[in-house]
């Protein structure tokens, strides 16, 4: 009993902080999502309106468009991060001159705040002053304008996300690859498997848990991307990069549409959970069940 009480005492500060900054806001947002509240509207009162916010969502073209581009963004960004991250992790498993320096540089984006990343990419991609449009124009005669081209803006946000978060994937996969036993790989060579077969039949299934954990983390992060994109494109041009996080931000802050913004947040949380659950059911659960 003694050690039990000591444990709770040691945990208490964390629990208190978690309670006030995690649990309370969550339930507050949940509560708000069932209310109509715009403090700067004609009627600034908080009015209970049942599931009206959620009903409105389904017919809200702005929200649906945002959901669409978000899914596209998450798909391209996370997939690219996984592929590039895996290739880099495999490269870091080998010895080459300057490996330590390269690995450090490669990890640097991870320690940068998203808002800084957004600023840097804005500086690099702003037409007429950015280095990237300038180089693309002088080398390939390509006109990159993220202020007018929806495709360009979308692509640059994906590349920015890949630039920022691939190192995380690389680090996790290096950890997974390093911890793999050597024997099954030697055995597979003897069993007649070529490199491609070893990758599909041995490497991939053996790093699958780490890979999926990474996908979960990246999926959740990408679904709630706000600051980088807000800084870079402000959600534009039009609503080309108005991802859900940006959409919520714009609903809640400039429009002060608190009730509706809360409802969108709850839906995004729900979608994230569903997406992770689907991945889990599709990829991990069958393995556990059979074992």
């Amino acid at each position, binding site marked *: 009993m003694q050690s039990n009480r000591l444990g709770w005492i040691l945990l208490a500060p964390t629990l208190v902080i978690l309670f006030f900054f995690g649990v309370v806001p969550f339930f507050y947002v949940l509560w708000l999502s069932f209310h109509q509240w715009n403090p700067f509207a004609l009627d600034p009162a908080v009015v209970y309106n049942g599931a009206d916010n959620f009903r409105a969502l389904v017919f809200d073209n702005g929200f649906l468009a945002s959901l669409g581009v978000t899914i596209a963004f998450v798909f391209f960004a996370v997939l690219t991060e996984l592929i590039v991250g895996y290739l880099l992790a495999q490269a870091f498993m080998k010895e080459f001159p300057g490996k330590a320096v390269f690995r450090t540089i490669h990890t640097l984006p991870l320690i940068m705040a998203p808002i800084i990343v957004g600023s840097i990419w804005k500086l690099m991609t702003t037409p007429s002053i950015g280095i990237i449009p300038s180089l693309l124009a002088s080398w390939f005669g390509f006109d990159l304008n993220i202020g007018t081209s929806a495709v360009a803006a979308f692509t640059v946000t994906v590349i920015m996300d890949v630039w920022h978060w691939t190192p995380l994937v690389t680090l996790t996969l290096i950890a997974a690859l390093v911890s793999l*036993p050597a*024997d*099954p790989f*030697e*055995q*597979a*060579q*003897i*069993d*007649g*498997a*070529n490199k491609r*077969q070893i990758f599909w*039949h*041995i490497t991939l*299934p*053996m790093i*699958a848990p780490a890979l999926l954990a990474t996908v979960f983390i990246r999926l959740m992060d990408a679904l709630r991307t706000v600051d980088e994109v807000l800084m870079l494109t402000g959600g534009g041009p039009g609503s080309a990069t108005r991802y859900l996080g940006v959409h919520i931000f714009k609903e809640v802050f400039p429009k002060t549409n608190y009730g509706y913004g809360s409802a969108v947040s709850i839906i995004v949380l729900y979608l994230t959970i569903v997406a992770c659950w689907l991945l889990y059911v599709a990829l991990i659960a069958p*393995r556990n069940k*059979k*074992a």
Partner: protein
Amino acid sequence: MAGVNIDDVYKRYGSVQVMHGVSIDIEDGEFVVLVGPSGCGKSTLLRMLAGLEPISDGTIKIGEKVVNEVLPKDRDIAMVFQSYALYPHKTVAQNIGFPLKMAKRPKAEIDEKVGRAAEILDLTKYLDRYPKALSGGQRQRVAMGRAIVRDPKVFLFDEPLSNLDAKLRVSMRMEIKELHQRLKTTIVYVTHDQIEAMTMADKIVVMRDGRVEQIGAPLDLYDNPQNVFVAGFIGSPSMNFVKGRIDGANGTRQFVSEGGLVLPLPAQASVAVGQEVIYGIRPEHISIGEGGVAMDVVVIEPTGSETQVFARSGTDLIDAVVKDRIAARPGEKIGFHIDLSRVHLFDGKTQQRL
């Protein structure tokens, strides 16, 4: 099926040479055991045969083909690792069928061969299980199954039994030997356990420090060890060695140890008076009775079927294994009778057989 020819093979890691010109001829269908203490290079040699370790010099042939530059997957060999190296994410059936799947065999054929291998190895009940749900012995059998479905030219075994308990080891030993008798495929088997080597091999290769010490049939090595190392390594309990010199006058010769123990010599021994020798006699070639060499009993270890007697004379400790039960007590005098036809004499300096 094919023989294996290892010709003057060297292995260097940078400037360190770990294998010094090893040559071994293995005939088609032979069961060859590489045996030696840890670090003798036997596993490295096996990995070189498998193609997992490049060789620095020399040639390795499987059948008529030089395989120095051939990738493991193209050598047509099967290997069982000490750790079994099962694929943790595949079921028993998938593990066993993996080599066939890699060879793109039709599914019906894979199922049939896996089924047959499982039957031979008594794994039919476990085909749907994952390796983590199997016992050590079952895992070992899955690894064997994966090897036998291949019908390879050569089986390589790297200490496959050393992770099993003693009882299981004995029964698996028999199963592997039986399997060899049935399949008649060439087997190269690595172990540090000389009993495994003795019981299973057609031919034993004793290795030490990256060199071959002796190659021969098990009983040949037991009866005629070429040097002190092989004599001590083969046989359990290990051979007694006593250092000393040949003493004698008027045509009678005897062995006198450094500690003064006098032992009889076989009449035909080709040794000269004054020569420094190592006198070797196996514990099982000493009997106990009246007269003989007088020794003081130190410890008696009865095992039921036989009794091991450790006895001392001066600084020399000799043990004997006899079928009879011994009534003597520690400290008492006892008479050792040495079977003179079984005495081994080695040169005191080169340690080679005389």
